[in-house]
């Protein structure tokens, strides 16, 4: 884990229950930040928070579906009441509903766009005022290589992730003069529950094409998040960093 | 039976030597248990218990404060033993 001192910073991580979000929440907490963990599965979320606390980190569980505007407002109020100020937001919550485009239903399209893209917008909007007041902020959006190069079977997912990149660039322009940076990370193939459901033969095929020769871990992504969250990365904004072991280039 | 003062003194010195990890030769009747032999308040309390157990007597709590030298201890023990007769 790269060493970054985030003591005194308050962070929000969406989709913090498992996978990349949990890895990011752990890394932020171990770097000294207080972390509000947002997720939908209350029981699992609380277990993840317990794990962070067991390691001496400071974290708290907040149950919320990021696609639900009213719920996001409510949870944002609760988090701001708890921490007073939010400095770092990591928009990580994401879902897949994979299917060939011609078979994607309206519902499958909306579900993915609503969590991945609308959720990113809702959560960012909810905390941006606090960052403006604090004159310091770090917004880190988790996109995907799928949003950069497309992926057959993921029309909805790749559209949502490409949308996140456009959103990142625009918001970085709007907030740059407020000492708030906005960046996106495009993970490649990372070992999480989301990818574990895939066919092992397919996974081996992908692995064979990764120059560094291994599947990524949530910690690999967390390290990139730590860089963007660091006070020392203040001159980097509107950027899209691919963290994929060299899979696409 | 009048207590044999010499015997009692020897026994007292033996107990003190053991308790305070001292050589018997370093201890005489005139030795001040606290100042010369380095006993602290807990040692003194422990010593009183040891005297009581060894001579099968009870030393009056009020009299403990009057004890400072080995001779004081021997006097006190003789007095109690005599009064017990």
């Amino acid at each position, binding site marked *: *884990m790269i*060493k970054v*001192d985030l003591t005194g910073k308050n962070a929000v991580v969406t989709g913090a229950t498992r996978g990349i979000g949990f890895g990011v929440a*752990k890394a932020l907490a*171990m770097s000294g930040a207080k972390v509000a963990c947002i997720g939908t599965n209350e029981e699992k979320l609380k*277990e993840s928070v*317990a*794990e*962070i*606390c*067991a*390691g*001496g*980190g400071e974290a708290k569980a907040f149950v919320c579906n990021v696609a639900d505007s009213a719920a996001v407002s409510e949870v944002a109020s609760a988090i701001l009441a708890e921490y007073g100020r939010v400095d770092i937001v990591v928009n990580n919550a994401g879902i897949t509903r994979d299917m060939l485009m011609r078979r994607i239903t309206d519902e499958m399209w909306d579900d993915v766009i609503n969590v991945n893209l609308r959720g990113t917008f809702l959560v960012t909007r909810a905390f941006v005022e606090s960052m403006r007041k604090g004159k310091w902020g770090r917004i880190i959006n988790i996109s995907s290589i799928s949003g950069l190069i497309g992926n057959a079977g993921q029309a909805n997912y790749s559209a949502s992730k490409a949308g996140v990149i456009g959103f990142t660039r625009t918001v970085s322009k709007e907030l740059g003069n407020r000492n708030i940076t906005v960046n996106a990370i495009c993970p490649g193939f990372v070992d999480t529950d989301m990818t574990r459901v895939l066919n092992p033969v397919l996974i081996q095929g992908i692995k064979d094409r990764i120059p560094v020769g291994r599947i990524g*871990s949530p*910690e690999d992504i967390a390290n990139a998040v730590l860089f963007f969250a660091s006070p020392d990365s203040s001159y980097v904004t509107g950027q899209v960093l691919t963290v994929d072991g060299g899979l696409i280039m | 039976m009048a207590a044999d003062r010499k015997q009692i003194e020897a026994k007292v010195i033996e107990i003190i030597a*053991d*308790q*305070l*990890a001292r050589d018997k030769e370093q201890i005489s009747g005139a030795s001040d248990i606290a100042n010369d032999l380095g006993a602290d*308040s*807990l*040692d003194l*309390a*422990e010593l009183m*218990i040891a005297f*009581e*157990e060894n001579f099968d007597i*009870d030393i009056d709590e009020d009299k403990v404060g009057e004890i400072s030298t080995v001779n004081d201890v021997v006097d006190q023990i003789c007095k109690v033993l005599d009064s017990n007769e």
Partner: protein
Amino acid sequence: MKKRVVITGMGLVTPLGCELEAVWKKLLEGESGITPLVDPELNCFRSKIAGQCRDFSPLPYVDSKEEKRIDRFAQFSYVAGIRAVEESGIDFSKENPFRCGAIVGCGVGGLGEIERQDAKLDKCGASRVSPFTIPKIMLNAASSHLAIRFGIHGVSYGVATACASANNAMIDSYRLIRDGDLDVVITGGTEAAVSKLGLVGFAAMRALSERNDEPSKASRPFDADRDGFVIGEGAGILVFEELEHAKKRGARILGEFLGYGVSTDASHITQPDSEGVYAGAALSAAVFSAGLNPEQIDYINAHGTATKLGDVAEVGAIKRAFGDCAKSVAISSTKSSIGHLLGGSGGVELIFSLLAIRDNVVPPTLNLENPDPACNLDFTPLVAKERRIKYIVSSSFGFGGHNACVAAGAFTE
């Protein structure tokens, strides 16, 4: 910024002896420190075996006067602590005494002394109860005596979380150095509960092995035929030091304390949570707070006491925390050799783990002849195994639901 914490001294008192290298050799060779109880006061109960430090004497480290004032449990930590300090080469007279500490874990304190003085009270009355009763039985005496010996004026206290005491003590010590409050802490754990009450109390819980006719076979962690733990006694004390402080005085660095995980089951006072949710959280946290991933851990010194429920719960916790890596990490329980040192176990087990790193060898789990099907991980049965070891985790889970796991590694710049 957080300070790095290294280990510069280690000392132990165990049923296999008090000489570090000799104990380590015996452990690797599969020697057992479990022996029959011979004292007629002690061998009349259900469990008639223990890991006893039979040849232990606090002399010459204390004189006969001090010996009477210090209970056996604190004598163990005193001797182990002095040896650890000797190895570290620290001269405390040259240190800022307010930046030094002594934090020692112990499960029950002076149990034997409680029994002796209680018997005296019953038989001879209040006036015959020793004035040293309280200063002997209080479990914080272990840290106090070390502080007195070395003129330590910073933080000193005892930690009591039953069998997790030593790990909790070391975790506190680590945090105090990491956060810049202290430079040096003498820390670890100690226990001397092979006494009437210790034997009767644990036996009443049906926690102790009753394999009395085969003492060396009695401690059988993860084995299908295990029937409880074998009570042991001893201490493991280490010198924790801030890295730059250690470097400045040219200390030999024995390893680095990297991270920890602590949690509490909050379910039952003695039974472990069967799913190992919180124990697993502590185990997992020890790994990631060290900045490591599960696949980087080469060795787990398990809690592995050989109770029916405890071992299975621990396997669950390891699987939870390590996922797919649970099958590939080398694990062993050194309690199979020396018994369960209760509050002293974590200190001794971290020392063993650091030696495992030094020598790249996994100490064995003795008596694991017929593995419990529910304990299907690599527990290094019967014989030591060579393996490159860079990072370790050592676990302790205490009655009361206390989970405390520590992570350490070979020191590299």
